[in-house]
């Protein structure tokens, strides 16, 4: 039950090697052992999406995955999205711009879910957007501004493409 084992994985581009008990969830491992408290726990049974992190670029729920299962893989948390001096990336910036958050508790998971969408599909349809954030619950905003944030990011990408090809 309390048997410790070493887990080696890449977190936000850095290799981390830590002893942890076999039953420790990836979320608890990130929060308690690595101090990455941006990953939030809302329901602890895979329903609310607050604990979303990217595993090899794909959004997963870190509360229902064991840390040991992430052995040798690459994890991106919310702390890994901004620049070294706290510069916001495009998704984070769009959330601020469109007021896509209030209490901020769901925000890290929401931002990461959107990031994964944009990375895999720079021109998502409205249905794609809804599908991408469909597993993340927000109790404050009512989702309209979150959709707006995604649309803002998508528009930004389109603008960049236009500039680079002209």
């Amino acid at each position, binding site marked *: 039950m*309390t048997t410790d084992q070493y887990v080696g994985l890449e977190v936000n581009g850095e290799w981390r090697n830590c002893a942890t008990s076999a039953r420790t969830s990836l979320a608890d491992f990130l929060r308690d052992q690595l101090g990455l408290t941006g*990953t939030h*726990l809302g329901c602890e049974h895979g329903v*609310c999406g607050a604990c979303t992190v990217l595993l090899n670029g794909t959004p997963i729920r870190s509360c229902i995955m064991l840390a040991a299962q992430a052995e040798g893989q690459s994890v991106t948390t919310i702390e890994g999205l901004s620049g070294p001096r706290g510069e916001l990336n495009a998704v984070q910036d769009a959330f601020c*711009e469109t*007021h896509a958050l209030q*209490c901020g508790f769901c925000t*890290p998971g929401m931002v990461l879910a959107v990031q994964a969408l944009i990375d895999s599909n720079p021109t998502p349809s409205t249905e794609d957007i809804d599908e991408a954030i469909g597993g993340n619950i927000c109790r404050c905003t009512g989702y309209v501004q979150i959709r707006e944030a995604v649309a803002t990011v998508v528009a930004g990408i389109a603008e960049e493409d236009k500039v680079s090809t002209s």
Partner: protein
Amino acid sequence: MTTIDEQAPDMTVTQESVASGVHDEPGHRYLSQPGRIREDRRFVTGSGCYVADITPPGTLQVGLVTSPHPHARIVSIDTEEALKIPGVVAVVTGAELAAETNPLRQYLDVPEVQWRPLAVESTRYAGEWIAAVVADSRAIAEDGAEVVVVDYEPLPFVMDPEHAAQDEAPLVHPSHGTNVMAQRRFVWGDVDADRARAGRSTTVTTRWNRNSTVPLETFGAVAQWDQHRDVLDVWASIQMPQFPDQVAEALRIPSNSVRVHFDVDVGGSYGVKRGIKHGVLAGFLARRLGVPVKLIEDRSENMHGGDFHGPDRLFEVELWYTADGEFTTIRIDVLDDEGAYPGRSPLQLAKPIGAIVGPYRIPSAAYNATAVTTNKTGQVAVRGFGQSPTNYAIEAAVDAVARDLGVDRLELRRRNFIGPDEFPYRIPSGTEYDSGDYPGVLDKAIEISDLTSLLAERDDLRAQGRLAGIGFAACLEYQGTASFRERDDVAHRAVIDARGREQKGSGSANALITAELKPAEGGTLVDVATELNVSGRAAQFGRSLLAEVSNTMVDEFVRRLEVMIGGGDDSPSVSGPEPSAGGSGSGVTGSAALAQDDLDVVRTIALPMLRKGLPAIAAALIAGLIGMVVGRRQRRVAGPGRIPVTYVLPYPEGRERASFLP
């Protein structure tokens, strides 16, 4: 009982201008620049600091043993197995806690109803905490909680509030002798004569079901006792100003020995983040063990035994009326299910008295309010805690009358609205409505909602065999008042006296506002001078915070003013000044809700009371000046606003206490 914390000294500060930002000029500053929210940056980067993120060195974690029974005698608690688990430091039961603490505060005079963080002798709802296991990690604490053996003797229980009110019902608190916690009857006006005049009546029962708002973050508290300073530091996910006092009172320590860190980010509350029992339990354990202690609910603990459940109110409304559909008198009976421990919830039954007849001309009224306990989790202030349930009940009765008479439901409402020419209007329970244009608000609601299209859509859906309906509600809530002291439409100058009262009655905020609009190059100069007078508990927060709040309020006022003037053709079609139609004491919901919800006046968690008191004033301000502004429609206003602000902070008024209660 008055604590020293409540007493703020007299303070008078005159502030000529508040300069900040790059656009400022001496004596002036620009308002209404589009802006981002300051805290969003930390939230989008995962740098927020919620209570679960706070872990002082050496922190131990708490796991809870909870009751599976709605009502049972606790025969014995065996903690031996739990204490054998490596990493489990202590197991504390209700008896041990009760020996060294006071019961948690009830707002009623019910000495036999003792509410404590951990149940003593018997448990009164499923999910109630029985014992706390303290361990090196939350996982180990949960392991410990699983092997604590509690021997229960199940007792008869009562779930239904109507049953609870009856004599033969099982008692939730036997030594109190009844499940009725409070009962008051009111009669205003000549009810008998008004009934006789009516000739007919309709009685409607409605239920405002128990519900919850479910913040994504559960409740949590971290406590650390400094034995060298006799100070308890508490970090918690709270929104409740009385928290430090109540924690201190329960722990039998002076209130200035409790330091609550109000800068903790709160992951949603919607009214439910109170957490007194959490704070007291964590504080007790931290003192006893001499180490920081952290208690973070999991979702299951939150939903079963946490501060989570809203009011469950049963209404019987009897409305009397003439053959012409004129309302003559109303009787409202309400039965409120408080759950196992009433806490402050029964106080809310007093709230409807301020607007007992809603927006209607009803000359007399009877109001009978009863609060009962049941074997359910205690009720907390889930949003919709104010007058919404009563509004729902009254409006259901109005619809029933329309059906009975075969009259259009909007027509019936119009017939009974207090007319714009009848103000000031004193309702039977004593409130004076200062002003309003209820038919006007209804017209606007019909126009904005495009009722004709909605009805067509409804009929289409029905034709497809689907269920569709459109509901109407005209309601009114007491928020605050505003009246013109002086008004000069030609010079565009007004002096407004605005009064807001904190909704829970523990403080008030009054403001005398002088507003002047002057032509200026490129726009209109908005000149607003405010004298803000805050009393009650809010005053203890000090003048710098109040200054910030006031400035935010005035900023918001000017911002909205700008939107209205700058909106061109989109400007609201308000004809003439409407001092408070919709915005304050006598608005019909719709515009009132709009004005209040749109205002994020206070962004700091330290001032939850002002957050409730001041929007009323700001709303009043905005409503009060619409008429003047619309008369001066210009394309753009970005003028500098000068804000001399005067604060007067008197000694506070009495402690929170509803006159409704015996």
